[in-house]
Each structure stands twice: as C-alpha cells, then as structure tokens.
C-alpha cells in the first residue's frame, strides 16, 4: 500500500536559518508528489509539486523540493526561514490510478516553529 512518512513531527528553527523538512514515500512507481502548508485554523495551500522532469522544483514563498528516486524522498527546503513560515507542512503523494480517479495520500505532517 502507498504511504508517506514525515519523520519529524516538530521542528524549531531560528528566523533566517535554513530549513529542510523530510518526506519519504512508499509506492511501486514514481507517484506525483506534493507539499502543502496549513497555517493555524486555515485550509491547505499548495507549495509545490513534482511529476516529471527536473528533480529540483521551485515553489511559492521561496520553497524548493528535490525528488530523489533512489531514496524515495521528496524533501522540502528553504534557505532562509521567515517568522510567517510557522505552520504545519504536509507531504502528499497522488498514486497513478488512471482517469478521473485522483486522491492524495498525506504524511502525518511536520509542525514548524520559528524562533525570533
């Protein structure tokens, strides 16, 4: 069965420091990969996604992620964190089910706290 693992439940970084959030997936083929962010009390917003081509993808708000097939990973990075980045981050995969069948399988999320 497909699954997504985010090993870090909670991360605290200082403002201006770099950030890397880990994501590993389990799937028989290369799925489509996504990172979403959820601010407190809000819905989910897409940061970036990967489904083919360049394995380093750029997203909104200065985020990027790198797909590594050999490690089944899709880690999210940001070179300099801002206080407004404090939120819950979800990695998700969309298995290739065909046609209009489409669903996201989410990891358990990583809560990011930013220290001044």
């Amino acid at each position, binding site marked *: 069965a497909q699954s997504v693992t985010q090993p870090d439940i909670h991360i605290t970084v200082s403002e201006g420091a770099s950030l890397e959030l880990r994501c590993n997936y389990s799937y028989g083929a290369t799925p489509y990969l996504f990172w979403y962010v959820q601010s407190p009390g*809000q*819905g989910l917003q897409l940061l970036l996604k990967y489904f083919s081509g360049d394995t380093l993808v750029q997203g909104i708000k200065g985020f990027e992620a790198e797909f590594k097939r050999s490690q089944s990973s899709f880690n999210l990075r940001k070179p300099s964190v801002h206080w407004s980045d404090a939120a819950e981050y979800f990695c998700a995969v*969309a298995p*290739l089910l065909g*046609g*209009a069948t*489409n669903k*996201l399988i989410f990891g358990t999320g990583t809560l990011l706290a930013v220290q001044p």
Partner: protein
Amino acid sequence: DTAVSQTPKYLVTQMGNDKSIKCEQNLGHDTMYWYKQDSKKFLKIMFSYNNKELIINETVPNRFSPKSPDKAHLNLHINSLELGDSAVYFCASSPPAAGAQETQYFGPGTRLLVL
C-alpha cells in the same frame, strides 16, 4: 473571490444528531473531494466525485452520505453523529479529468465537535 468555500466553519452538536456540511467551488472544476483531519492532524480522503459521479469511497461508514447536486457543489451529510466524528472536514476540488498530477484546491475546513 473565495475559490472553495465551506459552510459552516464551526459546528458543535450532540451525539445522535444529523448534520450537513456544504461545499461550493467557483473554479469550474469537475472533481471534488472530502477529506477528514483528525485530532492528530492526520488527513485522509473520504470521497471524491467527478461530474456528480462518485469515484472514490474510502470505506467510510454509511452514516456519511455525500451528495453532489451539480459540478460546483459537494455536500456531506452525517447521520447519527458519534464522538469519533469530531474532526476538521476539508472540501477540495481539482481541474477537469486530468488525473493525479492536478493540484487540489482546499477549502478552509469545517470544525465539527460532537458532544
């Protein structure tokens, strides 16, 4: 211009009651979804509809019945509410018939508390 909207935002009710959550999208999308986020923030798909047709039903109890009167709406009715139904319910939509690579756009969520 809210893309995906849900009503109500908060819902507090007693066990055994029946309640509905409404979802509307103005993005022209064909596919809509319901996800449940539990108290540990874990998100899991419940249903998806494409052009008013049920596509995915992830072994959700029969007490949950989605209804799609048209492509822009997907409502969720819950009968005989139980304590374990307390969660945040998210509606989402994605563009026409393009499959798994399409971005899903999420609503703000409905926070349901069953007492």
